[in-house]
């Protein structure tokens, strides 16, 4: 598979938290929770930002702290921090998007009273002008709080530099995503999304360097794999795809993911921050351009229109919707999404999942996916 750079990125994606402990020897490590914390600010303060993405290991430490009808993303994030005794972070910036995350931040804070801790109160509506003003205001507040913590001023120049670095990262990831879509045989879905995942944990400069190598390699190689035969195009809807072996199942079925609205993919890599004007407003503008995210209110039809647009624009054959069990937000959206897709005659497969998926559940999902590909997509 590909270059050394690619291998390294994939390795990191599959053991991210161990790496953070190493990084911590050099820099203070500040995590954030999904979604929408402007990591650019954390980076500009000379700190190392990362995105906490839960664990697929069994839940034991956090079982008594959150009821079992909370989503496994929240439970497994809590498991990680409590289980690792906080070894891999110095602090956290919490984004509150739903009831679960709001409480999680309080429980977490009580558990680690000595660590740096900040809420990022992103607007939970992006429907009206007040959302832009508020996002920008929260960026200003976070900037000040980070300055206090880091003991240094964050200049506008620091911010522009950080924006440029992150823009470059997003741009490289988009390029790679396009190549993967064009030439699915070159790179599996799993590999591509692992590369994206690695960026959530790594030093951005290092990621950019490795990523550039991967993109150069992919550009050079793609001519050898022009043939798209045997693949079907699909859109993936949802928040996160976990455990990542769901991508493996899609790869086995020869599905080519050509679009998504995931927090851990398009919502993260699409759209850049403008590198002029007021930095907080520039971040707010990027925020408002992102794809729809279930817990954030806006035009109520976007729960399906985003997916429909992607489906048509990309000429996909089907939509897979990854549903995290006990995610209330998705629970409320799904029946209407399914209904609309039925009306449109678009085949949709719901994949209900948990971070702690058992082998049996995985095998069942595999069977369902295969059956769907055979009977609905007519693939053998």
């Amino acid at each position, binding site marked *: 598979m590909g270059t050394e750079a690619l291998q390294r990125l994939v390795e990191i994606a599959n053991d991210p938290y161990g790496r953070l402990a190493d990084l911590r020897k050099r820099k203070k490590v500040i995590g954030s929770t999904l979604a929408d914390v402007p990591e650019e600010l954390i980076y500009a303060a000379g700190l190392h930002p990362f995105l906490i993405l839960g664990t697929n290991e069994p839940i034991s430490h956090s079982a*008594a*702290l*959150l*009821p079992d*009808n*909370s989503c496994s993303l929240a439970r497994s994030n809590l498991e990680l921090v409590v289980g690792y005794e906080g070894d891999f972070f110095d602090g956290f910036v919490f984004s*509150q998007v*739903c*009831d*679960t995350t*709001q*409480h*999680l931040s*309080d*429980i977490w804070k*009580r558990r680690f009273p000595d660590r740096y801790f900040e*809420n990022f*109160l992103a*607007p*939970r*509506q992006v*429907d*009206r*002008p*007040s*959302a832009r*003003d*508020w996002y920008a*205001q929260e960026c200003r*507040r976070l900037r000040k709080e980070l300055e206090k913590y880091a003991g240094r001023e964050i200049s506008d120049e620091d911010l522009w530099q950080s924006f440029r670095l992150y823009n470059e990262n997003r741009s490289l990831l988009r390029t790679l995503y396009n190549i993967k879509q064009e030439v699915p045989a070159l790179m599996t879905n799993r590999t591509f999304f692992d590369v994206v995942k690695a960026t959530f944990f790594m030093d951005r400069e290092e990621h950019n360097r490795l990523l550039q190598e991967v993109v150069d390699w992919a550009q050079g190689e793609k001519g050898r794999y022009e043939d798209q035969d045997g693949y079907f195009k699909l859109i993936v809807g949802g928040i996160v795809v976990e455990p990542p072996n769901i991508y493996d199942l899609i790869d086995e079925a020869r599905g080519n993911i050509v679009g998504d609205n995931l927090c851990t993919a398009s919502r993260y890599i699409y759209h850049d921050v403008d590198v002029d004007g007021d930095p907080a407003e520039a971040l707010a503008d990027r925020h408002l351009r992102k794809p729809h995210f279930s*817990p954030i*209110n806006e035009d*109520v*039809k976007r*729960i399906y229109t985003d997916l429909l647009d992607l489906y048509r624009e990309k000429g996909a054959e089907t939509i897979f919707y990854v549903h995290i069990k*006990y995610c*209330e*937000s998705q*629970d*409320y*959206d*799904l*029946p*209407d999404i*399914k209904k609309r897709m039925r009306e449109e005659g678009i085949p949709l497969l719901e994949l209900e999942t948990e971070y702690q998926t058992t082998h049996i559940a995985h095998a069942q999902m595999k069977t369902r996916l295969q059956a769907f590909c055979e009977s609905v997509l007519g693939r053998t």
Partner: protein
Amino acid sequence: MSEKVQEKKSAKELNKILTGEYLQDARTAHEHGKYIAYTTAVSPVELFVAHDIIPIYPENHAVACLTKRMGAKLSQVMENRGYTSHLCAYARSDLGYRVTGESPMGGIPDPDFNLACNAQCFTLTKWFEVLSRAYNVPIFVFDTPQWIRDPEARKEIVKYCVQQLKELVAALEELTGKKYDYDRLREVIKYSRDASLLYRKFLDMAAYKPSPISIFDALIHMAITVYLRGTPQCVDYYQTLCDEVQAKADQGIGVVENEQFRLYWENLPIWFKFRDHFNLLKSYGANILSSLYIHAWSYEFDCDKDPLETLAENYVSVFSNVTLEERAEMALDLFQRYSMNGSLMFVNRSCKAVSFAVYTLKDVITEKTGYPALIFESDMGDPRFYSETQIKTRIEAYLETLQGRAAQVA
């Protein structure tokens, strides 16, 4: 008896009359050129009242369904349509009602507009989004960021909320085609302020020993301030209620004879078990006096401030939107003021917004008060998640522990 005295209605009678009139108004709203807005129980409803828009609370209607034990049946209808059984029981029964039309009170009118304030919970936003799609009506999410303790941040939060309330006013003007009347809003807020103060006075009567009220009284009487605040009738109602309860307190009449245990309740009630719980507790000389939930409507509007600002400040700072630390302080304040000596902490499957903090809250409360607390999981409206024997045994065991402790002290 003079004629005047005969005319004076009791709070209970008034409750019935006011509810009847309110529903009648709502059902004939369109005939009178008025609009119907669905809203969440904690929301700046004063903006509607001052603009001839009748607020309807799907949550209240859901409570009626759950109390009449229709929860499981209505939920199953929705489960068959792809909704899961772990959503809030209010939402499940409301959506079930939309499909079946089944209601213990003849239903509620359909909305022209939906307002969801997320200070209470985030669930309501998603539930109302479903309704907005179904009825093809606008939804306005009044987004209230968590009321974190940093004073500078609070100022900015209020600004954001005020800005949104201006956006809401513009949306209401668009809906009705009428210019907004701020003088009328001021007047409405004054009524809300007075009613809220009286409502709080009523709740605070739990401080008397023995207490002339229980949480079950509060749960019945809170309905009026939820849906009629901002009106003079609501003020009169709570005045009448306070007078009645005060008279009981003056005579030393408590709801529980030989009151021994004065308990705090965490969370919403288990609606369909409400009476059974009251009777069980009573047999042990125990009474549940209060909870943060019923205090969610004791607002303190400041009529000298800009009306939108005082609305924003009150609605953003409700107990379900403060930090866990502050919420624990609020609960401890009730504990102290009402001299409580135990707590029943209910983890309500339906309500993540209130429940997810309860485990941690229990630790804080037991640590700070020195009294043991009982924690148990169930659902406020769905009997399928309520285990009768298990919960009854646990409550009894808990009360016996309290008795044991009391005997030791004595």
